[in-house]
Protein backbone atom coordinates (compact mmCIF):
# COMPACT_ATOMS: atom_id res chain seq x y z
CA UNK A 1 0.00 0.00 0.00
CA UNK A 2 1.47 3.37 -0.87
CA UNK A 3 1.87 6.17 1.61
CA UNK A 4 -0.91 8.41 0.34
CA UNK A 5 -3.50 5.62 0.39
CA UNK A 6 -2.41 4.82 3.93
CA UNK A 7 -2.78 8.45 4.89
CA UNK A 8 -6.25 8.70 3.37
CA UNK A 9 -7.27 5.57 5.28
CA UNK A 10 -5.90 6.99 8.48
CA UNK A 11 -7.79 10.23 7.99
CA UNK A 12 -10.97 8.29 7.35
CA UNK A 13 -10.42 6.34 10.54
CA UNK A 14 -9.82 9.57 12.41
CA UNK A 15 -13.06 11.03 11.07
CA UNK A 16 -15.04 7.92 12.02
CA UNK A 17 -13.69 7.97 15.55
CA UNK A 18 -14.43 11.66 16.10
CA UNK A 19 -17.93 11.02 14.72
CA UNK A 20 -18.33 8.18 17.18
CA UNK A 21 -17.59 10.53 20.08
CA UNK A 22 -19.82 13.28 18.66
CA UNK A 23 -22.73 10.91 18.08
CA UNK A 24 -23.09 10.76 21.86
CA UNK A 25 -23.76 14.51 21.84
CA UNK A 26 -26.73 15.01 19.53
CA UNK A 27 -28.46 18.23 18.47
CA UNK A 28 -30.54 18.33 21.64
CA UNK A 29 -27.40 18.44 23.79
CA UNK A 30 -26.04 21.53 22.06
CA UNK A 31 -29.47 23.13 21.83
CA UNK A 32 -29.94 22.95 25.56
CA UNK A 33 -26.49 24.41 26.23
CA UNK A 34 -27.30 27.21 23.84
CA UNK A 35 -30.58 27.98 25.56
CA UNK A 36 -28.93 28.07 29.00
CA UNK A 37 -25.63 29.59 27.87
CA UNK A 38 -23.69 26.75 29.47
CA UNK A 39 -20.32 25.28 28.61
CA UNK A 40 -20.20 21.79 27.01
CA UNK A 41 -18.34 20.37 29.99
CA UNK A 42 -19.09 16.67 29.30
CA UNK A 43 -18.28 16.93 25.62
CA UNK A 44 -15.01 18.77 26.20
CA UNK A 45 -13.99 16.25 28.85
CA UNK A 46 -14.73 13.33 26.58
CA UNK A 47 -13.07 14.71 23.45
CA UNK A 48 -10.03 15.43 25.63
CA UNK A 49 -9.88 12.12 27.47
CA UNK A 50 -10.19 10.24 24.19
CA UNK A 51 -7.01 12.02 23.13
CA UNK A 52 -8.33 14.01 20.19
CA UNK A 53 -7.49 17.46 21.53
CA UNK A 54 -3.94 16.34 22.17
CA UNK A 55 -3.39 15.49 18.49
CA UNK A 56 -0.74 18.20 18.10
CA UNK A 57 1.13 17.51 21.34
CA UNK A 58 4.28 15.46 20.67
CA UNK A 59 4.27 11.83 21.76
CA UNK A 60 7.01 12.44 24.33
CA UNK A 61 4.56 14.70 26.19
CA UNK A 62 1.66 12.29 25.97
CA UNK A 63 0.02 13.51 22.77
CA UNK A 64 -0.14 11.91 19.34
CA UNK A 65 2.35 14.15 17.55
CA UNK A 66 0.15 14.66 14.51
CA UNK A 67 0.05 17.59 12.13
CA UNK A 68 -2.30 20.49 11.56
CA UNK A 69 -3.99 18.46 8.81
CA UNK A 70 -5.18 15.88 11.34
CA UNK A 71 -6.01 18.51 13.96
CA UNK A 72 -8.13 20.32 11.40
CA UNK A 73 -9.96 17.12 10.50
CA UNK A 74 -10.84 16.63 14.17
CA UNK A 75 -12.31 20.12 14.57
CA UNK A 76 -14.09 19.88 11.22
CA UNK A 77 -15.84 16.69 12.30
CA UNK A 78 -17.00 18.25 15.57
CA UNK A 79 -18.72 21.05 13.68
CA UNK A 80 -19.88 18.69 10.95
CA UNK A 81 -21.73 16.68 13.59
CA UNK A 82 -23.75 19.72 14.65
CA UNK A 83 -21.55 20.57 17.61
CA UNK A 84 -19.33 23.57 18.18
CA UNK A 85 -15.57 23.11 18.35
CA UNK A 86 -15.36 26.73 19.48
CA UNK A 87 -15.68 25.38 23.00
CA UNK A 88 -12.33 23.65 22.79
CA UNK A 89 -10.37 24.74 19.72
CA UNK A 90 -8.14 27.22 21.54
CA UNK A 91 -6.07 24.47 23.09
CA UNK A 92 -5.02 23.35 19.64
CA UNK A 93 -3.99 26.72 18.39
CA UNK A 94 -2.51 28.27 21.51
CA UNK A 95 -0.57 25.21 22.51
CA UNK A 96 1.86 25.87 19.64
CA UNK A 97 3.12 28.96 21.44
CA UNK A 98 4.05 26.85 24.44
CA UNK A 99 5.39 24.03 22.31
CA UNK A 100 7.58 26.12 20.05
CA UNK A 101 8.72 28.79 22.46
CA UNK A 102 8.30 27.39 25.95
CA UNK A 103 11.32 26.22 27.93
CA UNK A 104 11.91 22.47 28.45
CA UNK A 105 10.77 22.92 32.08
CA UNK A 106 7.53 24.65 31.04
CA UNK A 107 6.78 21.96 28.47
CA UNK A 108 7.52 19.20 30.94
CA UNK A 109 5.32 20.87 33.52
CA UNK A 110 2.28 21.62 31.39
CA UNK A 111 2.08 19.59 28.19
CA UNK A 112 1.55 16.11 29.69
CA UNK A 113 -1.25 17.46 31.88
CA UNK A 114 -2.84 19.28 28.97
CA UNK A 115 -2.61 16.08 26.92
CA UNK A 116 -4.29 13.92 29.55
CA UNK A 117 -6.88 16.58 30.28
CA UNK A 118 -6.12 17.40 33.91
CA UNK A 119 -5.17 20.94 32.86
CA UNK A 120 -7.15 22.98 30.36
CA UNK A 121 -5.43 25.56 28.21
CA UNK A 122 -8.44 27.06 26.51
CA UNK A 123 -8.05 30.82 27.04
CA UNK A 124 -6.14 33.22 24.88
CA UNK A 125 -6.02 36.87 25.89
CA UNK A 126 -5.15 39.30 23.11
CA UNK A 127 -8.07 41.61 22.27
CA UNK A 128 -8.53 44.83 24.24
CA UNK A 129 -11.38 47.31 24.27
CA UNK A 130 -9.43 50.14 22.66
CA UNK A 131 -7.10 48.32 20.29
CA UNK A 132 -9.07 45.62 18.49
CA UNK A 133 -7.53 44.50 15.23
CA UNK A 134 -4.55 46.81 15.81
CA UNK A 135 -2.96 44.35 18.21
CA UNK A 136 0.41 46.01 18.78
CA UNK A 137 -1.29 49.00 20.38
CA UNK A 138 -2.51 46.88 23.25
CA UNK A 139 -2.09 48.50 26.63
CA UNK A 140 -2.15 45.75 29.20
CA UNK A 141 1.25 46.18 30.82
CA UNK A 142 3.43 43.76 32.77
CA UNK A 143 6.17 45.28 34.85
CA UNK A 144 9.02 43.08 35.96
CA UNK A 145 9.71 43.29 39.71
CA UNK A 146 12.24 40.75 40.94
CA UNK A 147 10.99 37.30 40.07
CA UNK A 148 7.47 38.50 39.30
CA UNK A 149 5.54 40.44 36.75
CA UNK A 150 2.90 42.87 37.98
CA UNK A 151 0.18 43.07 35.36
CA UNK A 152 -2.38 45.84 34.87
CA UNK A 153 -4.89 46.35 32.09
CA UNK A 154 -8.07 45.11 30.51
CA UNK A 155 -9.01 42.52 27.92
CA UNK A 156 -12.28 41.93 26.12
CA UNK A 157 -13.95 38.99 24.37
CA UNK A 158 -11.66 36.51 26.03
CA UNK A 159 -13.46 33.25 25.55
CA UNK A 160 -13.57 30.33 27.98
CA UNK A 161 -11.63 32.14 30.76
CA UNK A 162 -14.12 30.69 33.23
CA UNK A 163 -13.63 27.16 31.92
CA UNK A 164 -9.88 27.04 31.55
CA UNK A 165 -7.00 26.47 33.97
CA UNK A 166 -4.41 28.35 31.97
CA UNK A 167 -4.44 31.42 29.78
CA UNK A 168 -1.91 32.59 27.22
CA UNK A 169 -1.82 36.36 27.79
CA UNK A 170 -0.25 38.91 25.46
CA UNK A 171 1.03 41.98 27.32
CA UNK A 172 3.32 44.89 26.77
CA UNK A 173 6.59 44.74 28.71
CA UNK A 174 8.27 47.74 27.11
CA UNK A 175 6.18 50.87 26.49
CA UNK A 176 5.34 51.55 22.85
CA UNK A 177 7.29 54.85 22.94
CA UNK A 178 10.49 53.03 23.86
CA UNK A 179 10.57 50.45 21.07
CA UNK A 180 11.93 50.86 17.54
CA UNK A 181 9.20 48.77 15.93
CA UNK A 182 5.68 48.63 17.36
CA UNK A 183 5.75 44.82 17.16
CA UNK A 184 8.57 44.78 19.69
CA UNK A 185 8.20 44.97 23.47
CA UNK A 186 5.26 42.57 23.69
CA UNK A 187 5.53 39.38 25.74
CA UNK A 188 3.58 36.21 26.35
CA UNK A 189 2.74 35.13 29.90
CA UNK A 190 1.15 31.88 30.91
CA UNK A 191 -1.39 32.75 33.58
CA UNK A 192 -2.66 30.24 36.13
CA UNK A 193 -6.31 31.29 36.08
CA UNK A 194 -7.31 29.46 39.24
CA UNK A 195 -4.66 31.31 41.22
CA UNK A 196 -5.27 34.64 39.50
CA UNK A 197 -9.05 34.93 39.82
CA UNK A 198 -9.77 37.02 42.90
CA UNK A 199 -6.09 37.93 43.23
CA UNK A 200 -5.82 40.72 40.71
CA UNK A 201 -7.97 39.18 37.99
CA UNK A 202 -11.71 39.72 37.68
CA UNK A 203 -13.62 37.83 35.00
CA UNK A 204 -16.96 39.17 33.80
CA UNK A 205 -19.08 37.24 31.29
CA UNK A 206 -20.21 39.04 28.14
CA UNK A 207 -23.51 37.93 26.70
CA UNK A 208 -23.12 37.38 23.00
CA UNK A 209 -25.36 36.26 20.14
CA UNK A 210 -24.23 32.66 20.61
CA UNK A 211 -23.03 30.45 23.40
CA UNK A 212 -19.31 31.17 23.35
CA UNK A 213 -18.41 31.75 27.00
CA UNK A 214 -16.76 35.06 26.21
CA UNK A 215 -15.62 37.33 29.01
CA UNK A 216 -14.09 40.64 29.91
CA UNK A 217 -10.96 40.62 32.05
CA UNK A 218 -10.06 43.31 34.52
CA UNK A 219 -6.46 43.02 35.59
CA UNK A 220 -5.22 44.98 38.58
CA UNK A 221 -1.81 44.33 40.10
CA UNK A 222 -1.96 40.71 39.13
CA UNK A 223 1.23 38.89 40.07
CA UNK A 224 2.56 36.38 37.57
CA UNK A 225 5.79 34.48 38.40
CA UNK A 226 8.56 35.42 36.00
CA UNK A 227 9.09 31.74 35.25
CA UNK A 228 5.73 31.88 33.44
CA UNK A 229 7.16 34.10 30.73
CA UNK A 230 7.16 32.16 27.48
CA UNK A 231 10.31 32.56 25.39
CA UNK A 232 12.14 35.86 25.56
CA UNK A 233 10.77 39.10 26.89
CA UNK A 234 9.78 41.50 24.12
CA UNK A 235 9.37 38.88 21.41
CA UNK A 236 5.82 37.85 22.22
CA UNK A 237 4.17 39.30 19.15
CA UNK A 238 6.31 37.13 16.91
CA UNK A 239 5.36 34.06 18.94
CA UNK A 240 1.68 34.83 18.63
CA UNK A 241 2.00 35.55 14.93
CA UNK A 242 3.55 32.22 14.14
CA UNK A 243 0.66 30.50 15.80
CA UNK A 244 -1.76 32.43 13.61
CA UNK A 245 -1.40 30.24 10.55
CA UNK A 246 -2.36 27.20 12.59
CA UNK A 247 -5.34 29.06 13.95
CA UNK A 248 -6.47 30.21 10.49
CA UNK A 249 -6.34 26.67 9.13
CA UNK A 250 -8.19 25.21 12.12
CA UNK A 251 -10.93 27.84 11.93
CA UNK A 252 -11.24 27.22 8.18
CA UNK A 253 -11.79 23.54 8.90
CA UNK A 254 -14.49 24.31 11.47
CA UNK A 255 -16.27 26.49 8.92
CA UNK A 256 -16.06 23.68 6.38
CA UNK A 257 -17.61 21.34 8.94
CA UNK A 258 -20.39 23.87 9.53
CA UNK A 259 -20.88 24.33 5.81
CA UNK A 260 -21.30 20.62 5.21
CA UNK A 261 -23.77 20.40 8.06
CA UNK A 262 -25.85 23.26 6.59
CA UNK A 263 -25.77 21.79 3.10
CA UNK A 264 -26.90 18.40 4.37
CA UNK A 265 -29.72 19.83 6.46
CA UNK A 266 -30.87 22.14 3.68
CA UNK A 267 -30.79 19.41 1.03
CA UNK A 268 -32.68 16.95 3.19
CA UNK A 269 -35.30 19.50 4.11
CA UNK A 270 -35.70 20.62 0.49
CA UNK A 271 -36.30 17.02 -0.57
CA UNK A 272 -38.94 16.39 2.08
CA UNK A 273 -40.82 19.64 2.37
CA UNK A 274 -43.76 19.76 -0.04
CA UNK A 275 -45.35 23.12 -0.84
CA UNK A 276 -47.38 23.91 -3.96
CA UNK A 277 -47.66 20.20 -4.55
CA UNK A 278 -43.97 19.35 -4.89
CA UNK A 279 -40.77 19.24 -2.90
CA UNK A 280 -39.44 22.78 -2.54
CA UNK A 281 -36.05 21.45 -3.69
CA UNK A 282 -37.51 20.96 -7.14
CA UNK A 283 -37.51 24.73 -7.56
CA UNK A 284 -34.28 26.17 -8.88
CA UNK A 285 -34.81 29.16 -6.64
CA UNK A 286 -34.34 26.79 -3.71
CA UNK A 287 -31.77 24.34 -5.06
CA UNK A 288 -29.36 26.78 -6.71
CA UNK A 289 -28.31 28.62 -3.55
CA UNK A 290 -27.66 25.27 -1.84
CA UNK A 291 -25.69 23.99 -4.83
CA UNK A 292 -23.64 27.18 -5.02
CA UNK A 293 -22.81 27.06 -1.33
CA UNK A 294 -21.74 23.44 -1.71
CA UNK A 295 -19.42 24.36 -4.57
CA UNK A 296 -17.84 27.11 -2.53
CA UNK A 297 -17.36 24.86 0.49
CA UNK A 298 -15.60 22.28 -1.67
CA UNK A 299 -13.33 24.94 -3.15
CA UNK A 300 -12.50 26.30 0.32
CA UNK A 301 -11.69 22.78 1.42
CA UNK A 302 -9.02 22.48 -1.27
CA UNK A 303 -7.36 25.66 -0.06
CA UNK A 304 -7.56 24.45 3.52
CA UNK A 305 -5.76 21.19 2.68
CA UNK A 306 -3.21 23.08 0.58
CA UNK A 307 -2.46 25.38 3.51
CA UNK A 308 -2.39 22.47 5.94
CA UNK A 309 0.07 20.43 3.91
CA UNK A 310 2.38 23.41 3.46
CA UNK A 311 2.18 24.01 7.21
CA UNK A 312 2.95 20.37 8.00
CA UNK A 313 5.87 20.40 5.56
CA UNK A 314 7.28 23.37 7.46
CA UNK A 315 6.88 25.70 4.50
CA UNK A 316 5.56 29.23 4.32
CA UNK A 317 1.76 29.20 4.29
CA UNK A 318 0.64 32.63 5.48
CA UNK A 319 -1.16 33.48 2.26
CA UNK A 320 -2.80 30.07 1.90
CA UNK A 321 -3.86 29.89 5.55
CA UNK A 322 -5.46 33.31 5.38
CA UNK A 323 -7.13 32.63 2.05
CA UNK A 324 -8.48 29.33 3.36
CA UNK A 325 -9.94 31.09 6.39
CA UNK A 326 -11.64 33.72 4.22
CA UNK A 327 -13.01 31.25 1.67
CA UNK A 328 -14.25 28.86 4.34
CA UNK A 329 -15.84 31.51 6.54
CA UNK A 330 -17.55 33.10 3.54
CA UNK A 331 -18.88 29.82 2.24
CA UNK A 332 -20.07 28.53 5.61
CA UNK A 333 -21.93 31.78 6.04
CA UNK A 334 -23.39 31.44 2.55
CA UNK A 335 -24.44 27.87 3.37
CA UNK A 336 -25.94 29.02 6.66
CA UNK A 337 -28.00 31.63 4.90
CA UNK A 338 -29.18 29.13 2.28
CA UNK A 339 -30.14 26.71 5.05
CA UNK A 340 -32.22 29.30 6.90
CA UNK A 341 -33.93 30.41 3.72
CA UNK A 342 -34.66 26.83 2.67
CA UNK A 343 -36.20 26.06 6.03
CA UNK A 344 -38.62 28.97 5.71
CA UNK A 345 -40.13 29.74 9.09
CA UNK A 346 -38.55 26.61 10.59
CA UNK A 347 -35.10 28.05 9.98
CA UNK A 348 -35.84 30.34 12.90
CA UNK A 349 -37.21 27.65 15.19
CA UNK A 350 -34.70 26.47 17.79
CA UNK A 351 -35.65 22.83 17.47
CA UNK A 352 -34.28 22.71 13.92
CA UNK A 353 -30.81 23.84 15.12
CA UNK A 354 -30.30 25.86 11.95
CA UNK A 355 -30.57 29.18 13.75
CA UNK A 356 -28.05 28.03 16.38
CA UNK A 357 -25.46 26.98 13.84
CA UNK A 358 -26.23 30.13 11.82
CA UNK A 359 -25.26 32.26 14.82
CA UNK A 360 -22.20 30.15 15.56
CA UNK A 361 -20.72 30.27 12.08
CA UNK A 362 -21.33 34.01 11.71
CA UNK A 363 -18.58 34.65 14.24
CA UNK A 364 -15.86 33.54 11.86
CA UNK A 365 -16.36 36.57 9.65
CA UNK A 366 -15.04 38.66 12.55
CA UNK A 367 -13.02 36.50 14.95
CA UNK A 368 -10.29 35.50 15.48
CA UNK A 369 -9.52 37.82 12.58
CA UNK A 370 -11.97 39.78 10.54
CA UNK A 371 -12.35 39.28 6.83
CA UNK A 372 -11.15 42.81 6.02
CA UNK A 373 -7.84 42.19 7.71
CA UNK A 374 -7.30 39.09 5.59
CA UNK A 375 -7.98 41.10 2.46
CA UNK A 376 -5.53 43.74 3.66
CA UNK A 377 -2.95 41.05 4.32
CA UNK A 378 -3.31 39.46 0.89
CA UNK A 379 -3.33 42.85 -0.87
CA UNK A 380 -0.14 43.87 0.86
CA UNK A 381 1.85 40.66 1.18
CA UNK A 382 0.74 38.70 -1.86
CA UNK A 383 -0.02 41.44 -4.36
CA UNK A 384 2.50 44.04 -3.19
CA UNK A 385 -0.11 46.79 -2.85
CA UNK A 386 0.55 49.63 -0.41
CA UNK A 387 -0.23 48.78 3.18
CA UNK A 388 -3.70 50.02 4.01
CA UNK A 389 -3.81 49.60 7.77
Amino acid at each position, binding site marked *: MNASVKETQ*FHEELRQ*SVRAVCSKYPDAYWRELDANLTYPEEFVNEITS*SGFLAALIPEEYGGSGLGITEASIILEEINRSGGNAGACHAQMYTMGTLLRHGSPEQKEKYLPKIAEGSLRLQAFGVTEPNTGSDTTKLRTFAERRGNKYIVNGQKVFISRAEHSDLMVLLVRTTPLEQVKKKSEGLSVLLVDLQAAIGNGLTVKPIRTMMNHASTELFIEDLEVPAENLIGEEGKGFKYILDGMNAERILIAAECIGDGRWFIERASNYAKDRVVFGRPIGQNQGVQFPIARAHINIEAADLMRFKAASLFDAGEKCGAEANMAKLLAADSSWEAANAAVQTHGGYGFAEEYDVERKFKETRLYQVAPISTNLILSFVAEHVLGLPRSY
Partner: protein
Amino acid sequence: MNIFVLLKRTFDTEEKIVISNGSIVEDGAEFIINPYDEYAVEEAIQIRDSQGGEVTVVSVGGEEAEKQLRTALAMGADKAVLINIEDDIENGDQFTTSKILAEFLQGKEADLILAGNVAIDGGSGQVGPRVADLLDIPYITTITNITVDGTSVKIVRDVEGDSETIEAALPLLVTAQQGLNEPRYPSLPGIMKAKKKPLEELELDDLDLDEDDVEAKTKTIEIFLPPKKEAGKVLEGELDVQVKELVSLLHSEAKVI
Protein backbone atom coordinates in the same frame (compact mmCIF):
# COMPACT_ATOMS: atom_id res chain seq x y z
CA MET B 1 -5.51 -16.00 28.34
CA ASN B 2 -5.46 -16.66 24.66
CA ILE B 3 -8.59 -14.98 23.31
CA PHE B 4 -9.85 -14.95 19.72
CA VAL B 5 -12.64 -12.85 18.28
CA LEU B 6 -14.40 -13.69 15.01
CA LEU B 7 -15.26 -10.50 13.21
CA LYS B 8 -17.20 -9.78 10.04
CA ARG B 9 -17.36 -6.64 7.94
CA THR B 10 -21.01 -5.84 7.19
CA PHE B 11 -23.28 -3.21 5.74
CA ASP B 12 -24.02 -0.29 7.99
CA THR B 13 -27.38 -0.88 9.64
CA GLU B 14 -28.52 2.47 8.34
CA GLU B 15 -27.87 1.67 4.68
CA LYS B 16 -30.76 1.23 2.32
CA ILE B 17 -30.42 -2.02 0.43
CA VAL B 18 -30.54 -1.87 -3.35
CA ILE B 19 -30.68 -5.00 -5.53
CA SER B 20 -29.49 -5.00 -9.09
CA ASN B 21 -29.06 -8.04 -11.38
CA GLY B 22 -29.84 -10.43 -8.54
CA SER B 23 -27.23 -9.15 -6.15
CA ILE B 24 -26.95 -6.46 -3.50
CA VAL B 25 -25.31 -3.26 -4.71
CA GLU B 26 -22.36 -2.40 -2.50
CA ASP B 27 -21.13 0.72 -4.29
CA GLY B 28 -21.02 3.72 -2.04
CA ALA B 29 -22.42 1.83 0.96
CA GLU B 30 -20.81 2.31 4.36
CA PHE B 31 -19.36 -0.75 6.02
CA ILE B 32 -18.91 -1.41 9.71
CA ILE B 33 -17.89 -4.12 12.14
CA ASN B 34 -20.93 -6.37 12.53
CA PRO B 35 -22.51 -4.82 15.67
CA TYR B 36 -22.70 -8.16 17.52
CA ASP B 37 -19.02 -8.75 16.79
CA GLU B 38 -18.31 -5.34 18.22
CA TYR B 39 -19.73 -6.53 21.55
CA ALA B 40 -17.44 -9.53 21.23
CA VAL B 41 -14.38 -7.34 20.66
CA GLU B 42 -15.26 -5.14 23.62
CA GLU B 43 -15.80 -8.12 25.92
CA ALA B 44 -12.56 -9.73 24.79
CA ILE B 45 -10.64 -6.55 25.61
CA GLN B 46 -12.26 -6.32 29.04
CA ILE B 47 -11.51 -9.96 29.82
CA ARG B 48 -7.92 -9.54 28.70
CA ASP B 49 -7.55 -6.41 30.82
CA SER B 50 -8.73 -8.23 33.92
CA GLN B 51 -7.18 -11.68 33.29
CA GLY B 52 -4.13 -10.84 31.21
CA GLY B 53 -3.31 -12.47 27.89
CA GLU B 54 -3.85 -11.50 24.32
CA VAL B 55 -6.74 -10.75 21.99
CA THR B 56 -6.54 -11.73 18.31
CA VAL B 57 -9.30 -10.67 15.94
CA VAL B 58 -9.85 -12.82 12.87
CA SER B 59 -11.87 -12.01 9.79
CA VAL B 60 -12.63 -14.04 6.71
CA GLY B 61 -13.27 -11.74 3.79
CA GLY B 62 -11.60 -9.48 1.27
CA GLU B 63 -8.90 -6.85 1.38
CA GLU B 64 -11.44 -4.28 2.50
CA ALA B 65 -12.07 -5.99 5.84
CA GLU B 66 -8.67 -4.65 6.87
CA LYS B 67 -10.38 -1.43 7.83
CA GLN B 68 -12.67 -3.10 10.36
CA LEU B 69 -9.75 -5.12 11.73
CA ARG B 70 -7.81 -1.89 12.20
CA THR B 71 -10.72 -0.45 14.12
CA ALA B 72 -10.71 -3.48 16.42
CA LEU B 73 -6.96 -2.99 16.94
CA ALA B 74 -7.58 0.68 17.70
CA MET B 75 -10.21 -0.33 20.25
CA GLY B 76 -7.52 -2.38 21.97
CA ALA B 77 -7.15 -5.83 20.41
CA ASP B 78 -3.52 -6.97 20.19
CA LYS B 79 -3.32 -8.72 16.84
CA ALA B 80 -5.41 -9.11 13.73
CA VAL B 81 -5.57 -11.78 11.08
CA LEU B 82 -7.26 -11.34 7.74
CA ILE B 83 -7.99 -14.54 5.88
CA ASN B 84 -8.33 -13.15 2.41
CA ILE B 85 -10.51 -15.36 0.22
CA GLU B 86 -11.14 -12.74 -2.46
CA ASP B 87 -9.19 -14.57 -5.17
CA ASP B 88 -10.19 -18.12 -4.23
CA ILE B 89 -13.86 -18.17 -3.45
CA GLU B 90 -16.72 -16.64 -5.33
CA ASN B 91 -19.73 -18.00 -3.49
CA GLY B 92 -19.12 -19.01 0.08
CA ASP B 93 -21.66 -19.75 2.78
CA GLN B 94 -21.64 -20.30 6.54
CA PHE B 95 -20.01 -23.68 6.04
CA THR B 96 -17.20 -22.05 4.05
CA THR B 97 -16.53 -19.42 6.67
CA SER B 98 -16.65 -21.77 9.64
CA LYS B 99 -14.47 -24.38 7.95
CA ILE B 100 -11.82 -21.74 7.21
CA LEU B 101 -11.99 -20.28 10.70
CA ALA B 102 -11.82 -23.69 12.35
CA GLU B 103 -8.82 -24.63 10.22
CA PHE B 104 -7.12 -21.42 11.28
CA LEU B 105 -7.96 -21.88 14.96
CA GLN B 106 -6.90 -25.53 15.00
CA GLY B 107 -3.78 -25.82 17.13
CA LYS B 108 -3.91 -22.19 18.27
CA GLU B 109 -4.86 -23.31 21.78
CA ALA B 110 -7.54 -20.71 22.18
CA ASP B 111 -8.93 -20.48 25.71
CA LEU B 112 -11.89 -18.40 24.73
CA ILE B 113 -13.39 -17.61 21.33
CA LEU B 114 -15.94 -14.83 21.06
CA ALA B 115 -18.18 -14.25 18.07
CA GLY B 116 -21.33 -12.30 17.36
CA ASN B 117 -24.67 -13.94 17.83
CA VAL B 118 -25.59 -13.20 14.22
CA ALA B 119 -24.22 -11.10 11.40
CA ILE B 120 -26.76 -8.44 10.56
CA ASP B 121 -26.42 -9.07 6.82
CA GLY B 122 -26.88 -12.84 6.37
CA GLY B 123 -28.50 -13.30 9.77
CA SER B 124 -27.86 -17.06 9.94
CA GLY B 125 -26.30 -17.22 13.40
CA GLN B 126 -24.44 -20.36 12.35
CA VAL B 127 -20.78 -19.47 12.20
CA GLY B 128 -20.01 -19.43 15.92
CA PRO B 129 -21.64 -22.80 16.76
CA ARG B 130 -20.22 -24.44 13.63
CA VAL B 131 -16.67 -23.35 14.47
CA ALA B 132 -17.06 -24.72 18.01
CA ASP B 133 -18.36 -27.96 16.62
CA LEU B 134 -15.48 -28.33 14.19
CA LEU B 135 -13.01 -27.60 16.98
CA ASP B 136 -14.87 -29.98 19.26
CA ILE B 137 -15.30 -27.47 22.08
CA PRO B 138 -18.52 -26.40 23.83
CA TYR B 139 -20.36 -23.23 22.87
CA ILE B 140 -22.91 -20.94 24.48
CA THR B 141 -24.88 -18.50 22.35
CA THR B 142 -26.52 -15.10 22.94
CA ILE B 143 -24.63 -14.28 26.09
CA THR B 144 -25.33 -11.07 28.00
CA ASN B 145 -22.79 -11.50 30.78
CA ILE B 146 -19.60 -13.45 31.30
CA THR B 147 -17.29 -13.78 34.30
CA VAL B 148 -14.09 -15.72 33.98
CA ASP B 149 -12.45 -17.16 37.07
CA GLY B 150 -9.44 -19.34 36.31
CA THR B 151 -10.76 -21.93 33.89
CA SER B 152 -14.34 -21.74 35.06
CA VAL B 153 -16.76 -19.38 33.43
CA LYS B 154 -20.10 -18.10 34.57
CA ILE B 155 -22.42 -16.94 31.87
CA VAL B 156 -25.83 -15.35 31.61
CA ARG B 157 -27.51 -15.88 28.27
CA ASP B 158 -30.59 -14.39 26.77
CA VAL B 159 -33.30 -16.87 25.98
CA GLU B 160 -35.94 -15.05 24.00
CA GLY B 161 -36.14 -12.31 26.61
CA ASP B 162 -35.61 -14.49 29.67
CA SER B 163 -32.19 -15.18 31.06
CA GLU B 164 -30.45 -18.39 31.85
CA THR B 165 -27.31 -18.73 34.00
CA ILE B 166 -24.79 -21.34 32.98
CA GLU B 167 -21.46 -22.50 34.33
CA ALA B 168 -18.91 -23.81 31.91
CA ALA B 169 -15.19 -24.43 31.61
CA LEU B 170 -12.57 -23.20 29.18
CA PRO B 171 -11.90 -23.73 26.33
CA LEU B 172 -15.18 -22.36 25.16
CA LEU B 173 -16.82 -20.45 22.34
CA VAL B 174 -19.49 -17.86 23.11
CA THR B 175 -21.59 -15.61 20.91
CA ALA B 176 -22.48 -12.07 21.98
CA GLN B 177 -25.98 -10.71 22.33
CA GLN B 178 -26.98 -7.06 22.55
CA GLY B 179 -26.68 -5.87 26.15
CA LEU B 180 -23.39 -7.65 26.80
CA ASN B 181 -21.59 -4.31 27.05
CA GLU B 182 -21.29 -0.83 25.58
CA PRO B 183 -18.50 -1.05 22.97
CA ARG B 184 -15.90 1.68 23.23
CA TYR B 185 -14.90 3.78 20.25
CA PRO B 186 -11.22 4.03 19.37
CA SER B 187 -9.38 6.86 21.12
CA LEU B 188 -6.74 8.81 19.23
CA PRO B 189 -3.85 7.10 21.08
CA GLY B 190 -5.63 3.81 20.32
CA ILE B 191 -5.62 4.59 16.60
CA MET B 192 -1.96 5.58 16.74
CA LYS B 193 -0.98 2.39 18.56
CA ALA B 194 -2.97 0.27 16.14
CA LYS B 195 -0.76 1.45 13.30
CA LYS B 196 2.09 -0.50 14.86
CA LYS B 197 0.15 -3.64 15.76
CA PRO B 198 0.54 -6.73 13.58
CA LEU B 199 -2.08 -7.44 10.94
CA GLU B 200 -1.32 -10.75 9.27
CA GLU B 201 -2.86 -11.67 5.94
CA LEU B 202 -3.42 -15.31 5.03
CA GLU B 203 -4.91 -17.12 2.06
CA LEU B 204 -6.45 -20.57 1.72
CA ASP B 205 -3.07 -21.96 0.68
CA ASP B 206 -1.53 -20.90 3.97
CA LEU B 207 -4.13 -22.99 5.78
CA ASP B 208 -3.55 -25.97 3.50
CA LEU B 209 -7.09 -25.70 2.22
CA ASP B 210 -8.35 -26.18 -1.31
CA GLU B 211 -11.31 -24.39 -2.77
CA ASP B 212 -13.04 -27.79 -2.87
CA ASP B 213 -12.60 -28.27 0.89
CA VAL B 214 -14.64 -25.19 1.62
CA GLU B 215 -17.13 -25.24 -1.23
CA ALA B 216 -20.49 -23.88 -0.16
CA LYS B 217 -23.09 -26.41 0.97
CA THR B 218 -25.94 -24.14 0.00
CA LYS B 219 -26.90 -22.33 -3.16
CA THR B 220 -28.52 -18.92 -3.36
CA ILE B 221 -31.44 -19.15 -5.77
CA GLU B 222 -32.72 -15.63 -5.64
CA ILE B 223 -32.31 -12.42 -3.68
CA PHE B 224 -35.29 -10.10 -3.39
CA LEU B 225 -36.54 -7.30 -1.20
CA PRO B 226 -39.59 -7.77 1.00
CA PRO B 227 -42.76 -6.54 -0.72
CA LYS B 228 -43.55 -2.88 -0.22
CA LYS B 229 -46.06 -2.21 2.52
CA GLU B 230 -49.45 -1.47 0.99
CA ALA B 231 -51.56 1.31 2.41
CA GLY B 232 -53.76 0.08 5.27
CA LYS B 233 -57.51 -0.12 5.13
CA VAL B 234 -59.70 1.68 7.67
CA LEU B 235 -63.14 0.18 8.14
CA GLU B 236 -66.02 2.52 8.71
CA GLY B 237 -69.65 2.40 9.73
CA GLU B 238 -71.55 0.72 12.56
CA LEU B 239 -69.47 -1.51 14.78
CA ASP B 240 -71.29 -4.75 13.92
CA VAL B 241 -71.03 -4.00 10.20
CA GLN B 242 -67.29 -3.40 10.66
CA VAL B 243 -66.85 -6.68 12.50
CA LYS B 244 -68.68 -8.58 9.77
CA GLU B 245 -66.59 -6.92 7.09
CA LEU B 246 -63.39 -7.68 8.99
CA VAL B 247 -64.24 -11.35 9.33
CA SER B 248 -65.10 -11.58 5.68
CA LEU B 249 -61.86 -9.83 4.66
CA LEU B 250 -59.77 -12.06 6.90
CA HIS B 251 -61.43 -15.02 5.29
CA SER B 252 -61.55 -14.07 1.64
CA GLU B 253 -58.65 -11.64 1.18
CA ALA B 254 -56.08 -12.40 3.85
CA LYS B 255 -57.10 -16.07 3.88
CA VAL B 256 -56.07 -16.47 7.51
CA ILE B 257 -59.34 -17.82 8.84
